[in-house]
């Protein structure tokens, strides 16, 4: 991992990896999804019924414990990583690089 600081434990901190998924709310029309669906159809994938496109973000962070990591990631999502007007988010947290 390019910019990451060395080992998993450092001054009592642990590296966690959060995998965040940000999706458009269901009520919001997804232009990218519709376009991709159109392309899939014209490529012969007519069995495709719907496509929705979202973002996945992997954030590595170094915190004291799991709870802190979880709180911080949640705050990042609320503040910056998702736009509550049109998006929902969820994340998964795991220990280690």
């Amino acid at each position, binding site marked *: 991992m390019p910019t990451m600081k060395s080992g998993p434990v450092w001054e009592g901190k642990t590296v966690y990896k959060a995998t965040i998924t940000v999706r458009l709310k269901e009520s919001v029309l997804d232009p990218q999804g519709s376009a991709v669906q159109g392309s899939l159809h014209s490529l012969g994938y007519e069995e495709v019924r719907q496509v929705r496109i979202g973002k996945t973000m992997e954030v590595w962070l170094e915190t004291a414990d799991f709870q802190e990591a979880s709180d911080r990631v949640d705050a990042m999502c609320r503040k910056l990583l998702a*736009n509550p007007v049109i998006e929902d988010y969820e994340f998964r947290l795991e220990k280690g690089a």
Partner: protein
Amino acid sequence: MRFAVPVFPGSNCDQDCAKAVREVLERPADLVWYTEDSLDNYDAIILPGGFSYGDYLRTGALARFSPVMEAVAEAAEKGKLVLGICNGFQVLLEAGLLPGAMRVNDHLQFRCSIQTLQVENNSLPFTACYKQGEIIRLPIAHGEGNYYCDDQTLQELEDRGQIAFRYHGENPNGSVAGIAGIVNRRGNVLGLMPHPERAIHDWMGSRDGARLFRSMLQYWEGMYGAA
């Protein structure tokens, strides 16, 4: 009347906006670096187009946390005129100074062209020099101008006359109700995707944008006299 044009890393229409103010209104316009936290010396603010922070994550999402944005919010609060053009509009949405959010164009491509618009409300500080319902031509240049808001917000925008401009004829990005530009409830913050600063001389292909700036000046002079 003194204009501030905040510059974020990645802004690229900042000079164009300042130039338009100088050429159309012959009023001073200063470029203000995004780290500034006061805009007290200015009467109006233009958030320029471009790709602040590369438009990474979401358009306008990273710029909204700049120190200068607090000053912009303060200025809006005080009733100063705030105009967000293109990326500036996107920043205003992310900052919550205007309702709604921006999505990628429905055809997924960047689109640059001169578009016809209809003036939906000419009683705003930004539109007084247009006729109600007038059809004007302004350039657009964006990949994410597909404005979204929920039905209730849309109803409110319609009811309160907050829709300033709508695309006329072709909707170039799929925006809800053909919206090209909206104002806040108070009417002193306008965000629009088209670029009025790119339409101030005939050689540019249109000069319909000049009257937007003139409207701002006229409004201000109406409030404070021709100083």
